[in-house]
Structure formats: C-alpha cells, structure tokens
C-alpha cells in the first residue's frame, strides 16, 4: 500500500477491498447456486451419457473401495477398543455391538465415506475439469455444439450421488466387521452373534436418514468439484487452486449437511 496515503485514505481503501471481497463472495455463491440448479434441468434432457456415467461410477466407486474399506475397518476397530474400557466399567460389554452399529451407521460410516470421496473424487474432478478448461478442451466441446455441462458435470455429479451411498453402506459393513475383530481381541464372540446384536439395536430412524444424507453428500461433492474445475481461470496455477478449493468446499458442505441432517433426525 502506498505509504504516502494517510490513515483515513488507507482505511477507505481497506473498506473498499472488503466490500469488493463481499461482493465477489456473494457473486460466487449465486453462481454456485445457479450451477447447482442447472444440474436438475440438464439431468433429464437427452442424450443420456450412460457410458460416461458408468465410467465415472467406476472411478468414484470401484477405485475408492479399498481406501474406504480400510478406513472403515480401522474406525470399527478403534471405536471398539476405545469404548470397551468404559463399557466394561458398567458391565455393558454385550452392548458394544449395538453401540458400534448405531454410531457407525448413523454417523461415522457416512461421514468417513464422504470425507474420503471429497478428498479423492472431489479433488480429481476439480483438477480434471480445471485442466480441461485451461487447455481449452471445454471450449472445444462447446464449439463442436456439444453441451460440456451435460457431458462433464451431469455425469460426474450423478456418479458421486449414486456411489457415495453405496460406499457408505460398504463402509458400515466393514466397520462392523472391524468392531467384531476388535471384540475378539479380549472376548470371544461369533460373527453371527455380533451381527445379530448389532442389528438388534438399529432402527429405521437410524438407517433411513443416514442413507438419505449420503445422497446429499454425493451430490454436493460432485457438483462442488465440478464447479471449481469448470470455472477455473486460465493458467496452470488455477488447476491446483481448483483441486484444493474443491476439497475444502466439499468438506465444509459435508459437515454443514451433516449438522442439518442431525437436527432434522432429532426432530423426527
């Protein structure tokens, strides 16, 4: 800042900068909302890019199974080991499977899955579309009269919306299995017995809202990743920025949705 400016002038410039930042933030928020809304208009219109949707499902779903499975297993083991001493104090070791199943199905499974997908799929989408924007591949689609939004954004967002719930179910099952393994470190319990006890504590109100919120997680991870990449500025630096901000914004969205879902579930 120019040192010749007096305090008043500097303050005025700061206020103006803040105001323009706010304006920009509001503009970006409005742009994101319009971008998200466009998905619901475009998703019904032919031509349907099933091949691309399947390919994206393969990338989001199949390619993440190992990572999500491993994380779910570790979470199940850790949860069991951590909660065992407290439960033992109350002589409630037999309740551990039920406690694990409720906490995993309601919260840990969906959130862990969403976090991993935001990091893996969200950043990939941000970087991929950002690089396509920078290298004018998106422009090339437009000038060939191909709707890049439909081909790139709709397919990817559909893939995450469909895959995150499936991955969350997979993560739940693996986490329960991890809990079973951890239970057997100190106690002896058959797999069948563990799962019967775990399922006995689960109710519809535990499963259904958790499943519904994973669709929202998937949608937001996909659309935010695509938005950041699709609107990347020119220059290679913007690809990194797009990938980075896609993860940050998607994670933030996941936690906000989780909070809203918890409040809604509480009301039911």
């Amino acid at each position, binding site marked *: 800042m120019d040192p010749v400016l007096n305090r008043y002038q500097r303050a005025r410039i700061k206020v103006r900068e803040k105001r323009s930042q706010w304006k920009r933030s509001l503009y970006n928020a409005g742009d994101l909302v319009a971008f998200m809304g466009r998905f619901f208009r475009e998703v019904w219109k032919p*031509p349907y890019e099933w091949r691309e949707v399947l390919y994206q499902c393969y990338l989001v779903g199949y390619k993440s199974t190992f990572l999500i499975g491993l994380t779910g297993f570790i979470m199940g083991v850790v949860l069991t080991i951590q909660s065992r001493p407290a439960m033992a104090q109350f002589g409630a070791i037999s309740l551990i499977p039920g406690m694990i199943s409720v906490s995993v199905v309601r919260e840990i499974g969906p959130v862990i899955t969403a976090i991993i997908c935001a990091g893996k799929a969200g950043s990939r989408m941000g970087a*991929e579309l950002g690089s*396509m924007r920078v*290298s*004018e*591949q998106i*422009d*090339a689609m*437009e*000038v*060939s*009269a*191909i709707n890049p939004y439909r081909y790139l954004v709709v397919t990817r967002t559909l893939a995450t919306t469909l895959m995150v719930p499936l991955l969350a179910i997979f993560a739940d099952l693996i986490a329960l299995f991890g809990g079973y393994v951890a239970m057997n470190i100190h106690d002896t319990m058959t797999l069948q017995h563990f799962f019967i006890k775990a399922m006995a504590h689960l109710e519809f109100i535990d499963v259904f809202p958790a499943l519904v919120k994973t669709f929202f997680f998937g949608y937001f991870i996909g659309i935010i990743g695509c938005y950041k990449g699709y609107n990347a500025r020119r220059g290679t630096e913007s690809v990194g920025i797009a990938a980075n901000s896609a993860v940050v914004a998607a994670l933030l969205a996941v936690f906000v949705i989780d909070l809203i879902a918890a409040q809604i579930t509480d009301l039911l």
Partner: protein
Amino acid sequence: MRENQPYEPGEPESPYTGEGNPGEGNPNEGNPREGNPGEGNPGEGNPAEECSSAEAREIAGENPEAPTGDDEDIGPVTEKSEAELLAERLERQDVADEQAESIRRAEEELQKELAKQGAEPVVNIRGLRKAFGEHEVLRGVDLHVNKGENLVILGKSGTGKSVLIKCLVGLEWPDEGEICVFGKDVSRLNYAELNESRLRTGFLFQNAALYDSMTVRENLLFPLRQHKKDMTREKKQALIMEMLDNVGLAESMDQLPSRLSGGQSKRIGLARTLILRPELMLYDEPTTGLDTGTGKEISELMIRMKKKYNISSITITHDMPCAKMTADRIIMLREGVVVAEGTYEELERSEDEWIRSFFH
C-alpha cells in the same frame, strides 16, 4: 488495398458498413446484398419493397419534397380537364412504379449473380466492440469473409485477434456490433440456434485442444457420436479413416494425445474439426510453436482441405510464410481496429512502416 480507417460509428468505411437502410439517405448508396432477409430488420430487406411512398418516388428520380398528386393544388380547372390531369397523374405514378420495379429487379439480379459467383459473405462483422473491464480489446471492427475465401488476420499479440474469432462461435460475447455468420447474428441466437451455427463452423485451437483422456480415434468419434446418431458404426469408422488419411496420421489412431508431437496434435485437431464437414473454419494460430517444416506442412494441409471441401476460413497467425501461402486476403488489426486490408503482395508494398514491419 484499404488502409488506416479506424471505425467511426455511422461512417461507412467498407461496402459492408454503409448498409442499405432505406430510411437513411439515398438507398442507392447502401449495399442491398449485405442484407439478411427474414430477420425482420427493415434495413435488410429489399429497399424498393420496403420503402415508403416518398422514398419510392425518390428511387424513381422524383423530388421527395414535392407534393404528391393527392394533395397537389391544381388550381382552377381552366386549361386541362379533370380527366386529363388524373390521367397524367396516373401516368407519372406508373413510371415511378416501373422505375422502382426495375431497381428491385436489378438488385435481385445482382444478388443472384453474387450468389452464383460465391461472393456472398459467409461472415459479416460490423462495428464489433469488446472490452474486458477497463481494457477495450476490439474497438469497432468491420470485416467480411466471402464464400471459399481465406481471410488472414495479422496483428501483434493482445490486439484482440483470438477474441474476434471466439465471438464468431459464441465463446465470447460482443459488447456492441453485429456478427453475422451464415446470415444470422450470432449474438442474438438462442442456444439451439447457436449450436446449429457452431455445427457449420470448425475451430482449430492454438494447442489443438484434443481430449486427453481419449485416444485419437475416440477424439474423432466423439463429435460423430454426439451429432451423427443415425450413422452406422462402419460409416463412422470409414469417415475417421478418411479424415486421418487426409492429415496423414492413420497409424496414430490408437495413441493418446499425450504421445503426439505438436504438429501431429494440430493435424489431429484439424481432422476432428473437419469430420463434421464445416463450411467455415477458424484457425487460431495454426502454426505457432511448430518448426518451419511442420508449419509449412500444416499450411499446405489447410490449403488442401480448403480446396477439397470448399471451406471458407479465417486464420489468425503471426507466421508470415503461413499467411503468404494461405491468404486470399489479409486484414491487419492494430489496437482493436482494422488498419489495413489487401492481398499479401499489396500489403508487402505498403508505405506504412508498421505494416511493412510484418513483412520484412
């Protein structure tokens, strides 16, 4: 050759700026063939048909300020009878109608003749202005491209050449001006109409913009899959082969773009663009970043494709050998305005130092 005529609104500087709007001055001054019939602009239709009665009389050589026969004060009916005066008036009107009709017929003939010669402009830009924030990139550009013609746009970096051709396909939107491509103003088209126009226009990007997750074959197949749904698989394959043969890269069919050299990428980009058989090609610096030999090959390929498919084109380049080989006409952009127009030879002999600096 045309030199140094910065755009002034309202001042016709080329045959395409002094449009034949019957409401403005002498209709004979305007160029009626620039019109875009069917678009509802009264200035673009047939002047003789759309003129008011005063203008019709003006066309017929009469004084428009003179009173018409209807309100003419004929004074006391002494020397000529009323019937004789009526006959005279009708005769005058017949002559005017006849003259207007003959003008209209002549215009039609001219338009037919121009269409026959292929001189009908494929692209017609008038008063194009575009700014990015405070920076005004294009400041009233006028140009036209005739059918089958290759127009080369020369100018230093940052003079808005790429922005200009991006406006033709709706990648950028003009702030002011008219961009007629195939007779339709691109900036006023809806998305479906714009896509129709885009299908008739090919765009070769500076870096070829090949889809890097697809092989060369898939790159060429992609537009066909989107737009030629009725085409059989065999026909699509045959078309891909034809296009790759055209650019001499049939053997690279299963390679990924990352494995191709700069020149090969450009050629595949050209093949991908040509596969939809565009009538207009826009080349954004087709030889930039290539060695002299490869640049020459690309220029030759452009000429070959132009002849084979009778394509009109606009080429943006800094590469003078490319401009010399491919240009039918050259325009020079300086600070967002067209400063010179002519053939390569004409501009090479220019007395303007700035223009000559490109050629020597």
